[in-house]
């Protein structure tokens, strides 16, 4: 079984900016993304926008090569860490059919 070593980048934050992050991820080289609705609490969640009834927090996952992972993390941290409740981390994964995810 042929597995490719890639990175799983996970970004969790205010729903209001997560779609932008997902789209930007594609521009930075990710071949796709997966979004899920979550509920969260963090150090700055008091600043979360709580739009009545709207879902507050979204998680976005990218399976990407190391260089793209770095670009996404850098983008997220530069653009959103100052004013938005966002957290991002990266983990090692092995992917089937991984070649498809290397060069967007």
């Amino acid at each position, binding site marked *: 079984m042929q597995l490719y070593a890639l990175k799983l980048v996970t970004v969790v934050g205010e729903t*209001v900016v997560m779609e932008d992050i997902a789209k930007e991820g594609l521009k930075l080289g990710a071949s796709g993304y997966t979004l899920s609705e979550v509920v969260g609490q963090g150090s700055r969640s008091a600043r979360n926008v*709580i739009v*009545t009834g709207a879902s507050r927090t979204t998680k976005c996952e990218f399976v990407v090569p190391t260089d793209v992972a770095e670009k996404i993390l850098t983008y997220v941290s530069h653009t959103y860490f100052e004013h938005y409740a966002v957290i991002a981390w990266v983990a090692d994964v092995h992917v089937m059919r991984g070649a498809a995810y290397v060069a967007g």
Partner: protein
Amino acid sequence: MTTMPCLVLAGHIPALPAVVSAEQLSRILQSLERNLLTPIPLCFLLGIICTRIHGGIKIPKELYLSIAIFLLMSIGFIGGHELAHEYQMHGVATIWKPALVTLFLGCVTPITSFLVLRYLGGLSVADSAGIAAHYGSTSAVTYAVANSFVEQTQHPANSFLPTLVTILECPGIAIALVLGAALSARERAARAAAVGQPVRESKLGEALYEVVTGQSIMLMAGLLVIGFVSTLFMDPKGFQPFFDFFQSKGMLFRGCLCIFLLEMGLVAGERLSDLVRVGPFLVAFGILMPLLHGFFGVYLGHLAGLNLGGCTVLGAIVASASYIAAPPAVRLTLPEANPTLSITAALAITFPFNIAFGIPIYFEMAKWIGAV
């Protein structure tokens, strides 16, 4: 700018004997009682109580959103239907003045709000503009409650009020955001240079487009057109079931409003604990600004020829603050603005104030000013 509305008002107001006479006060109190002891505000109260005692009521998000959709469609559709009747009888003769007045109010209220917040309150540019965007726009639910109120007092508002709600939705947000973006651009550029990063490109254009094509406008304006067109072209028998469904005096509208207000109470209750954090200035702002804006609305509405119910409702919607369209737009364009301030003010102070006290007060204002 702030003095201008005063100028407009000069001379037309009956002499103020002692601001509010004893008789008027008792009338206001009666009005309040009649308003407060009805299911809609009581459901709001139940929601607040439930949150405060950590009770278990949970309105599914989807129910809340579905009711919001229904209410907006209903406001639009019935508005379009009555506009068609009005139009068939009077053409645009009765409508253009109130429409202009509403547009004017939509442009003035974000500016009065901004000035008060920035110079009386000493808030930052971003916070002032962010909150002003909320108070410049309007809350469709406040409209619905005000409308129910005047219908119950047997003074239904002019038929075209839903059109005015639609007109009032956007300009306030736009003006406040443009103001905020312009005034804080230099600050941002300086800070970006300091940390050696490129200036984040502004999302202003995007955010404004999203407000104008947002759910509230699309549904209200869209259904307004649909209600208008179907009234003109359908035979009344075929039209009836649609009318019954959307009918704003009907059981569905009133009942859904109860459930909606329950959820609003649950949310506002959670926000009550933030009242301390936002400080006394913002609490006062959240009560006094609506009174001032409400008076503008009532008074200019009267000048534009609205009836008693119409003046009351226009007062209420001008006084109300948006908590649906404004927050995401502000969050995207003025990220340094603290959303806790604006949402708490709009949702936990102004909204309950208007529901419980504001609407009967605007009603008395309208009477006092001579609307019939």
